[in-house]
C-alpha cells in the first residue's frame, strides 16, 4: 500500500501509478497536453508540473511514479509560472487562427490558455511556416496548429498499430506526416483525430460542417457495422447525424473506432432511402400506401399458407436488424405463416460454424471475451484478417503481440503482417489437411481429454490416417501450439464457406478441445449472434432450443399462444433452390439483399423471379428489392431502439438518435401484417419485445434494458447454457478436388466496407472508391500486371472489370475481390456447392482468368 499526499489530501494506492493518475482518481485535476489515457506516458509538454517535497525541480506528474510518503502540491506560484510559460512557448509558433479552426470550442490548447495562459505574448519574431495539406481523401493536416504532443503518432503506432504516420524532422522542424506526404494511405481509423488536442488533424468530411456548440443532442449508441459492437456517441443536429465521436472508459472499444464506425454513419441519412411502400403493378414498382401494401401482403401470405401450407413460405432474416426485429420476424414466420423456413445470410459462415462447434463442444463455446485475447500466450488466426473483419478485435490481437503473445497465422492476414510470429501458407484450399495434421500431432503429444466421447472417438479415428504434409513453418507451428501456453483461436469465415468446410471445423473443434483453447468466431455483421439467439434458424427456437425437443416447443407454444410447425425448415441455399423448384412460392426478406450477397447471383436472381410473391423490407432499393412485388421502407440503425448481441455475446443497446418520418421499425411492420393475418402481435415499444424475450429465452432470462445499459450483459444472463453435445458426429463422404496451377477467386473482406450499407457512406467511398482485384506479387509479375491496371476477371459465372492492386501479403494463387460495389461484387462470379453437414454454400475453387484491358 502506497500512501501519498496531494494538496493536503491523503491518497492510498494499491499499486504504484503515476502522480497524474493518482490525482485523477482523487478528483484532483492537473492540466496535461501530451498525456492521454489510452497512451503511454510521454513527458513532452511539461504542462503537468507539480511540486514534490524534497525534490529540487518541478516534476512532471505524468511521468512521476507515486512513491510512498510523497508530498505533492499541484498549485503554487512556481507551478503557475511554469504552466504559463509553457503555454507561451506553445503559442509562439501557433497561427492563432481559432476563428476559422474547426477545433475551436473543443480545443484543448484553447481551453488551457484560457485557464492558465498569459493574456499577451512576447514573441515578436516570425512564426514557422508549414503549408496546410488537403491532398488526402479524408484527413487534413495543419502543422502550424500542431503542438507536437505526438499523441497521434503514439496512437497510430502503439495502439492502432497502423504506424502510418510519424514525426518527420527534428526539433522545431518536426512535423507529423504520413509516409507519402500527400496521402495517409492508412487504415483510416481516425483514432489520431480523436487524440489530437488541437485542430492539426481534421477530417475532411466534417470540415467547416459544424461547431461543437451547435450540436442538438448526443446519443450513446453502438456501431451498426460489425459483430464487435463498439460503443460511441453520435452527435445530432437538425435530425441528422453530424459526427460520431468515441466514448472513453466504456464499451470494449474504450474510445477506439475503426473507419466504418467513425465515417460510415451517413448511411441512414442517404437521399436514396425508400420513403413509401412500393407495389408492383404491371411489372413496375409504384408508390403505394402502407394500408394497401400491408393488406396485400397479409392476404397473399394467408392465401398461400391456406392453399399450399406453410412450407410454401420462407423468410430471410437479417444480421443487421435488432434482436427485437428478428425475434418478431421468426415468431411471425412460425406462428402466422406456419413455417420454419427461416434462415439468414449468416448461414454462409457464422451461424453454421457456431452451430457446428456448439454441437460438438457445447453451447457457449464461442462465448469468449474479446479483451481476454490479450491474456493468451498464443493466438492462432485462420480464415481471414481479423483487423479487417472485426477491426477492434484485431487491435486486441495486435496489443497481445506487443505484449509478447505469439501470433500464428494460417493463410493471409494482411493486417497482422508486422505482428505475427509465424505464418504458414497452405497449398490452395488445403487448410483442412494442415489442420488435421496439427490435430493428430496434438493428439499424439497430449492424448485425449476424455470428456466428450464422440469427439474423442472421431479424433482417434482421424489419427489413423497417415498425413504427410510439407509446408514451411508447419513444424514450428506445431511446437508453438504444444508449448503449453494458453491458446486462443480466431476463426474467420473464409475457411467455413467451403464445400467440405465441416472438415476444417472439425479439426478446429478438435484442436480447441485438446488444447482447451478459447475460440473466437469473426462476425461480419452487427447482430449475427443475436440473430441466432432469436431463433432465426430453421431448427432452433429462441435461446438455441432445438425444435425437435417437444418440451421446449410446448413452452413456447404456451407463451406464443398457438402451434409451432413440427417440421424443421430449410436452410438458406435450400430455400433458394426450393424457390427455383417452385416449392416455395412466397419469400419474405427482411433487411437482406440475397441477389447480391449470395453466390451465383444470376441463379439466385432467376430463383427469386420464379416466386409467386416476394416481399422485401429494406431501407434502400437493393438489387433484391428491385425484384419484389412489395417493397416496404424500414428503419435504419440510427432510427430505432433495440439491442444487438455481439460476437462475444454481449447484449448492447442501440438507441434511436434521429427521427426520420418515413422510417418504420421492422418489428412494427411485421406485427401489423401478422395481426392482419389473424395472429395478433402488439408491442408498444421495442423494450416490450425484450421483456417477452426475457421470459421465453433461457439465455436472456430476466434481462432488461436498464441492465443492458450498464454495458456488462453477457449471456447466459441469469440462465445457463442449455444445449449439450451430440453423441454422433456426422461425416460426409470425402470428395477430393484437385486444384490446378491456375488462379482461384476468393471473397475479400474490406476494412472500409461491409457490403450493401457502406457503399452509401460517402466518406467510406472516398477512402475506397473502387473495387480492386488483389493479387500476389508473383502472379502479377507472371501476368505482366501493374498496380492500377484495368483487367477483366472472368469465371464460368461471368465477368467483370476492375482495377488491379498488388498485395505483397498474398503468397498463394488466390486472387481476392470484395463484395461491396454495385454490379461488381465477387459473388456474381462465384458458384457454390452446399456442404452436406453444415449446409454452408461452399464457394471456393472458382478458377478465374484475368485479362488486361
Amino acid at each position, binding site marked *: 500500500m502506497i500512501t501519498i499526499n496531494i494538496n493536503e489530501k491523503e491518497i492510498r494506492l494499491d499499486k504504484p501509478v503515476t502522480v497524474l493518475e493518482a490525482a485523477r482518481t482523487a478528483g484532483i485535476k492537473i492540466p496535461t497536453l501530451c498525456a492521454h489515457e489510452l497512451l503511454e506516458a510521454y513527458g513532452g509538454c511539461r504542462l503537468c508540473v507539480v511540486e514534490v517535497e524534497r525534490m529540487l525541480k518541478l516534476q512532471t506528474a505524468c511521468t512521476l511514479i507515486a512513491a510512498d510518503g510523497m508530498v505533492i502540491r499541484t498549485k503554487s506560484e512556481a507551478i503557475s509560472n511554469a504552466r504559463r510559460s509553457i503555454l507561451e512557448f506553445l503559442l509562439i509558433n501557433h497561427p492563432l487562427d481559432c476563428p476559422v479552426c474547426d477545433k475551436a470550442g473543443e480545443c484543448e490548447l484553447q481551453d488551457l490558455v484560457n485557464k492558465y495562459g498569459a493574456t499577451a505574448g512576447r514573441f515578436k519574431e516570425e512564426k514557422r511556416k508549414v503549408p496546410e495539406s488537403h491532398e488526402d481523401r479524408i484527413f487534413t493536416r495543419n502543422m502550424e496548429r500542431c503542438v507536437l504532443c505526438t499523441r497521434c*503518432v503514439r496512437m497510430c*503506432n502503439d495502439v492502432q498499430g*497502423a*504506424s*502510418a*504516420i*510519424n*514525426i*518527420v*524532422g*527534428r526539433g522545431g522542424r518536426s512535423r507529423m*506526416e*504520413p*509516409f*507519402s506526404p500527400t496521402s495517409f494511405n492508412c487504415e483510416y481509423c481516425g483514432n489520431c483525430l480523436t487524440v489530437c488536442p488541437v485542430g492539426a488533424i481534421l477530417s475532411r468530411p466534417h470540415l467547416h460542417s459544424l461547431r461543437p456548440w451547435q450540436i442538438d443532442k448526443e446519443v450513446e449508441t453502438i456501431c451498426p457495422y460489425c459483430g464487435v459492437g463498439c460503443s460511441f456517441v453520435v452527435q445530432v443536429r437538425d435530425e441528422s447525424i453530424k459526427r460520431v465521436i468515441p466514448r472513453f472508459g466504456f464499451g470494449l472499444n474504450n474510445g477506439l473506432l475503426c473507419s466504418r464506425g467513425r465515417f460510415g454513419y451517413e448511411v441512414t441519412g442517404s437521399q436514396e432511402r425508400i420513403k413509401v411502400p412500393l407495389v408492383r403493378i404491371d411489372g413496375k414498382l409504384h408508390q403505394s400506401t402502407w394500408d394497401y401494401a400491408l393488406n396485400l401482403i397479409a392476404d397473399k401470405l394467408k392465401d398461400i399458407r391456406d392453399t399450399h401450407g406453410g412450407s410454401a413460405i420462407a423468410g430471410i432474416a437479417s444480421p443487421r436488424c435488432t434482436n427485437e426485429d428478428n425475434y418478431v420476424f421468426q415468431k411471425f414466420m412460425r406462428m402466422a405463416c406456419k413455417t420454419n423456413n427461416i434462415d439468414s445470410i449468416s448461414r454462409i459462415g457464422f451461424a453454421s460454424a457456431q452451430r457446428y462447434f456448439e454441437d460438438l463442444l457445447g453451447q457457449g463455446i464461442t462465448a469468449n471475451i474479446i479483451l481476454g485475447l490479450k491474456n493468451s500466450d498464443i493466438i492462432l488466426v485462420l480464415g481471414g484478417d481479423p483487423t479487417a473483419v472485426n477491426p477492434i478485435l484485431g487491435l486486441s490481437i495486435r496489443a497481445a503481440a506487443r505484449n509478447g503473445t505469439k501470433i500464428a497465422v494460417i493463410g493471409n492476414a494482411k493486417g497482422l*503482417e*508486422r505482428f505475427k510470429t509465424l505464418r504458414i501458407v497452405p497449398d490452395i484450399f488445403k487448410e483442412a489437411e494442415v489442420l488435421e495434421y496439427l490435430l493428430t500431432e496434438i493428439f499424439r503429444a497430449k492424448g485425449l481429454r476424455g470428456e466428450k466421447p464422440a469427439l474423442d472417438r472421431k479424433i482417434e479415428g482421424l489419427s489413423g490416417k497417415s498425413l504427410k504434409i510439407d509446408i514451411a513453418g508447419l513444424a514450428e507451428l506445431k511446437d508453438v501450439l504444444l508449448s503449453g501456453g494458453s491458446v486462443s483461436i480466431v476463426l474467420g469465415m473464409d475457411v467455413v464457406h467451403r464445400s467440405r468446410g465441416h472438415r476444417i471445423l472439425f479439426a478446429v473443434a478438435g484442436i480447441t478441445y485438446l488444447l482447451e483453447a478459447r475460440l473466437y468466431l469473426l462476425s461480419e455483421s452487427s447482430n449475427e449472434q443475436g440473430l441466432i439467439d432469436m431463433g432465426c434458424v430453421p431448427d432452433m427456437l429462441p435461446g438455441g432450443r432445438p425444435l425437435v425437443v417437444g418440451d421446449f416447443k410446448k413452452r413456447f407454444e404456451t407463451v406464443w399462444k398457438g402451434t409451432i410447425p413440427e417440421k424443421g425448415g430449410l436452410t438458406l441455399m435450400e430455400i433458394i433452390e426450393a424457390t427455383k423448384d417452385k416449392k416455395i412460392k412466397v419469400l419474405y426478406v427482411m433487411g437482406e439483399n440475397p441477389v447480391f450477397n449470395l453466390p451465383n447471383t444470376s441463379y439466385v436472381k432467376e430463383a427469386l423471379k420464379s416466386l409467386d410473391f416476394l416481399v422485401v423490407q429494406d431501407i434502400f432499393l437493393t438489387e433484391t428489392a428491385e425484384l419484389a412485388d412489395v417493397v416496404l421502407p424500414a428503419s435504419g440503425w440510427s432510427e430505432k431502439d433495440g439491442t444487438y448481441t455481439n460476437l462475444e455475446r454481449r447484449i448492447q443497446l442501440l438507441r434511436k438518435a434521429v427521427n426520420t418520418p418515413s422510417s418504420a421499425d421492422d418489428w412494427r411492420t411485421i406485427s401489423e401484417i401478422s395481426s392482419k393475418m389473424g395472429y395478433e402481435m402488439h408491442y408498444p415499444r421495442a423494450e416490450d419485445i425484450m421483456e417477452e424475450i426475457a421470459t421465453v429465452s433461457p439465455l436472456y432470462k430476466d434481462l432488461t434494458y436498464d441492465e443492458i445499459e450498464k454495458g456488462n450483459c453477457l449471456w447466459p444472463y441469469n440462465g445457463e447454457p442449455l444445449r449439450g453435445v451430440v453423441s454422433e458426429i456426422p461425416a460426409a463422404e470425402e470428395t477430393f478436388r484437385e486444384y490446378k496451377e491456375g488462379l482461384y477467386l476468393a471473397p475479400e473482406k474490406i476494412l472500409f466496407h461491409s457490403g450493401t450499407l457502406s457503399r452509401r457512406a460517402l466518406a467510406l467511398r472516398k477512402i475506397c472508391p473502387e473495387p480492386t482485384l488483389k493479387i500476389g506479387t508473383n502472379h502479377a509479375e507472371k501476368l505482366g500486371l501493374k498496380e492500377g491496371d484495368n483487367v477483366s476477371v472472368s469465371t464460368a459465372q461471368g465477368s467483370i472489370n476492375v482495377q488491379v492492386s498488388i498485395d*505483397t501479403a498474398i503468397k498463394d494463387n488466390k486472387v481476392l475481390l470484395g463484395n461491396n460495389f454495385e454490379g461488381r461484387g465477387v459473388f456474381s462470379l462465384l458458384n457454390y456447392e452446399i456442404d452436406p453437414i453444415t449446409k454452408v454454400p461452399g464457394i471456393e475453387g472458382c478458377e478465374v482468368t484475368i485479362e488486361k484491358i
Partner: protein
Amino acid sequence: MFKETILKEIDDIKARYPDPKSALLPTLYIAQREFGWLSHEAMHVVAQSLNLPEAMVRGTASFYTMFKHKPMGRHLIQLCTNVSCMILGAERLVDFLKNRYSLEPNITTTDRRFSLVIMECIGACDRGPAMLVNTDFHDSLTEERIEEILEKYK
C-alpha cells in the same frame, strides 16, 4: 528490393543485435550508399527489407542529419562552423565557398560536383576550421587550402 548480396549484408547486421530493428540505421546507410540519397523508393525498400512500417523508417531517417533526403553531388563537403571553428574563421570559408564555387549550405552545385552541408562540431576543434569531404578529414583550413583540397575531388 535490394540485391541478394545486400540482403545478405543486412542479415549479417541483424544478427548482431537482439532485435533486428536495430539494423535500421545501418540499413539506411546502406540504402544511402546504394541509392545516393534516401528517396521515397529507397526508404520503401528499407522498410520492406526489415519488415518495418514505411512511416517509421522515414520518421527515423529524418531525425538524423547525416541521412540525405535529396540527391547529393558527387562530393559531399561537411564544413564545421561551430564555436571553435567559428572563432578560427569558419564563417569566412562559407562565404568563400559561395563566391568561389557557388556552393551554398544545403545546395548542390549545378554540375553536381559538390554539395555543402554545415556541420555542428566534427571533433577537429584543435585544428579548426575543419571539414569532411566525403569521409576524409581536412583541417586547419584557409581559403587557399580549401582550393587546393577541392582540386582533388573532381
